[in-house]
């Protein structure tokens, strides 16, 4: 093992590491669901970028990056979107329910 050369892959790898930390911080410290969801997606973006760095370093056989992790990230981005869409709908439904029960309290 030796220290990585400072190239684009290393730089974006460090960026991905920082993004994971920022996202985790937001997940732990936010009370509002939508903000937690945003922070969760920030973290996810960082994890995906780390995959991209592994792919870039695995460049070979005439490809600019290892296609296997890249394909996994494409799958991951789509699944993350689906989970986000479901979570947003849950949050909206919860808010509508809270609003309805608040209305009952005042009547």
């Amino acid at each position: 093992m030796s220290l990585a050369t400072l190239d684009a892959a290393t730089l974006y790898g460090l960026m991905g590491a920082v993004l994971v930390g920022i996202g985790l911080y937001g997940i732990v410290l936010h009370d509002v669901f939508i903000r937690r969801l945003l922070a969760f997606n920030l973290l996810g973006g960082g994890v995906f970028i780390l995959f991209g760095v592994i792919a870039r370093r695995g460049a070979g056989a005439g490809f600019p990056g290892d296609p296997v992790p890249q394909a996994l990230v494409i799958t991951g981005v789509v699944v993350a979107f689906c989970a986000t869409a479901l979570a947003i709908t849950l949050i909206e439904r919860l808010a509508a329910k809270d609003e309805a029960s608040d209305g009952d309290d005042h009547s």
Partner: protein
Amino acid sequence: MLGLALDLLIAALVIGVALWTVRTRDDFAAIVGFVAYGLLLTLAWARLAAYDVALTEAAIGGGVTGVILLRASIRLKPVATARKPIGARILVGLLCAAISAALAAVVLLPMTPAPSLAIEVRTHLASTGLGNPIAGVLMAYRALDTFLETVVVLLALFGVWSLTPDAAWGGRPAMAVPAAAFGPLPLFGRLLIPVGIVIGVYIVWVGADAPGGKFQGATILAAMWILAMMAGLTQAPSIGRWRLRLLLAAGPIVFLAIGLAGIPLAGAFLAYPEALAKPLILLIEVALTLSIAATLGLLVAGPPDVTPGVEP
């Protein structure tokens, strides 16, 4: 050197926008920050020479996720919350920084040689009839992942629909922006949608040999549909229609049927007979494109909120 300066600038912008998204007090500002984050990440992906991923991130991470977040920002009332005590913030910050530092260490001390399956992908790519290695991985080597992914997309829509209020079950989502009828949105839709459909179909088609593919193309097609619904040019369909449900399930069904046919014909689930690999992959991609575009559009539209038979 200039390249590295550009990378440094992009990385600084991404981190800056991420910090803003977490730190701002305003929920709407955080959503706008997140959309900017998705678009900036696209640049990072392009700089990592992962153009297929860059397209996906632009279309999904920055695009449709942004639309669905804006939908939430309209429906959710802002909640006032107090900041956490400074001690808690410092403690959590330190622990998160430790995790970042550990990941940074992994980045700075890589394995040599770097693990890679690029050579295996290159060796077998010709047998799939595809020129884009990522399409090869998605449709042949890791077809099971892709199949399960299409099922997950559909399951997410089931989840969203299951949150429908009782009265609206079987109805359709209300998508049109009320003031849109005479504004610039319908005009914008009429100009952009034909172009967008051509670009979406092109990206699906070209994905066999160049960056692109069904997820990216289907997302663009879904975006055009969403635009048409928001501009009031068309209505979201009632979720009870069986033709709609067939369209949503067509992709996974075709994929599964061809996958099962692979057991007697090619000796394994989701294996293709070599002579027919390219046409079969194309057939799956066309069916998946239609299903994914419809499913993504309906995910953004959300659960039905118009009671069937009652027009607003």
